[in-house]
């Protein structure tokens, strides 16, 4: 299973790790995100982050006092990279009322891959954005129809692209 953490969820994980490193109590969102992070066990469950998040973490890892904690995180996650048709699908999703940023993350979960380009898409997007979760659920049939229509015109293996489940971290693989 592949799970993409949206930007906020990945940030919650890192902020939670830094709180653990300070001996502070976690918020409920940090707790459930780190629970998901701790349950990561490739190849059963692989966690992915978006490239902008990876950029921030690579900068933070340059600071010596944070390096070990940030690498603890980076060593267990992968970076999802956009594949062909990612931008086209993101534009289609914007047509379903998603913001530019939400559409990009959702499109990456369908037309995204790993570093070696051996996978296509994610099974889950983990997010705390409840309006996005609700909107994804209510528009599901129309979005699936749109994807199916697009797939008629695109080659393999992209034709097998799939819609992810959009869930809160505590619901992923529970």
């Amino acid at each position, binding site marked *: 299973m*592949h799970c993409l953490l949206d*930007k*906020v969820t990945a*940030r919650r994980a890192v*902020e939670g*790790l*830094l*709180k*653990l*490193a*300070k*001996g502070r109590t*976690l918020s*409920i969102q940090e707790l*459930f995100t*780190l*629970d998901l992070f*701790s*349950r990561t066990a490739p190849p059963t469950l692989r966690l992915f982050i978006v*490239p*902008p998040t990876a*950029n*921030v973490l690579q*900068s933070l890892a340059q*600071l010596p*006092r*944070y390096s*070990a*904690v940030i*690498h*603890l995180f980076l060593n267990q996650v992968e970076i999802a*990279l*956009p*594949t*062909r*048709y*990612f931008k086209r699908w993101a534009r289609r999703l914007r047509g379903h009322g998603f913001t*530019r940023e939400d559409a*990009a993350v959702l499109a*990456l979960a369908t*037309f995204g*891959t790993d570093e*070696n*380009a*051996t*996978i*296509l*898409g994610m*099974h889950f997007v983990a997010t705390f954005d409840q309006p996005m979760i609700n909107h994804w659920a209510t528009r599901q049939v129309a979005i699936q129809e749109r994807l199916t229509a697009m797939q008629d015109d695109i080659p*393999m*293996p*992209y034709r*097998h*692209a*799939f819609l*992810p489940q959009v*869930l809160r971290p*505590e*619901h992923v693989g*529970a």
Partner: protein
Amino acid sequence: MSGSIFALPVSVEQLAAAIKQMSQTDQKQLLDLVPDLRHIASQPSSRTVDQAQTTVARLRAEVLSVLKDRPLSPDEPFMGGLTLGQYHALPDEERTKLWDEWAGTDLMELEEKEVDSNALSAG
């Protein structure tokens, strides 16, 4: 009436076995008679706080271990000229803005990659 039903010596497992023997039509009728079942079935299952706390306790030990038992101080210099304590004290919207600034990349501007012809679809 309801009292007599609850008094029946029937376990959930026995009920489940009986439901499995029903025709699909009867099972659908059962769902109509107990609409809460549809609602429950549509809810994703969830991790509990207790489960998460147990998992995260192990992670806490791992974090302290990679820090060689030298916890971070709130006064540690962080990114953006802030200390770690100042960063954590910022409102969530401010932290979101900072991460967007620090990211320096727009996902929509990234080059699209060709996947392997045998790429494994999430479907």
